């Protein structure tokens, strides 16, 4: 499983049929989480499964050149940082921690033809943080399990 397998059917199905739709569905679940079933945790699990699929079919070497374990760890930490940062920015705007009413929302209000969109925007910000942390952590766990497997 560490080398790239030579089955052209597997590559075609995984690369051009499955992974794009899994990624698209993952981002849809992330963005749609505001008004329907979904959210950062679910989207992170879906996109993480697409990354694991690429690591299974393309081989660990090639996938790691695209996104290394160290990069995954950085992305996971950045996700938590984004979440905490969105919360901390509220403190600088004079609001309580994690109170998103400070987010500027003029153009979104005009676009959505609705009021009170600043909290929804803040929620989208923290969902992106959760999404990055979950997707990167799932792939990271798979990476380290595979590394131990290739040792034996």
């Amino acid at each position, binding site marked *: 499983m560490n080398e790239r397998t030579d089955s052209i059917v597997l590559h075609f199905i995984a690369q051009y049929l499955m992974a794009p739709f899994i990624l698209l569905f993952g981002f849809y679940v992330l963005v749609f989480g505001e008004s329907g079933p979904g959210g950062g945790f679910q989207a992170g699990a879906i996109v993480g499964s697409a990354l694991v699929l690429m690591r299974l079919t393309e081989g660990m070497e090639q996938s790691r050149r695209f996104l290394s374990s160290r990069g995954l760890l950085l992305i996971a930490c950045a*996700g938590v940082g984004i979440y905490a940062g969105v919360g901390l920015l509220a403190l600088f705007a004079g609001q309580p921690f994690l109170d998103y009413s400070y987010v500027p929302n003029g153009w979104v209000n005009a676009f959505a033809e609705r009021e009170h969109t600043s909290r929804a925007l803040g929620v989208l910000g923290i969902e992106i*943080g959760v999404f990055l942390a979950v997707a990167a*952590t799932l792939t990271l766990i798979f990476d380290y399990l595979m590394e131990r497997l290739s040792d034996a």
Partner: protein
Amino acid sequence: MRLLGLLVLVLLAGVFVHASGDLPDRGDPNAPANVHVSPHYLENAGDEVGMPNVVSAVLADYRGYDTLGETVVILTAGIAVAFVLIRRPRRQ
């Protein structure tokens, strides 16, 4: 020793079964969980948060602290797996 463990388990199970008799019924509108803050969330989430999805509103806005903690837990789990499984250089 195994017999003692079994006895403790049976005793604990008995305590739990006995205590579960005092829990409110499923879907009881007068249960404490359904009369405290849930009605407020259901009635005001649309106006206060501006999101149609009440679940996301509660998860990410009303209970933002809790979700921040969950995210940190996930990151901690990943780092713990990395520490357990990381390949150390072998001493020859």
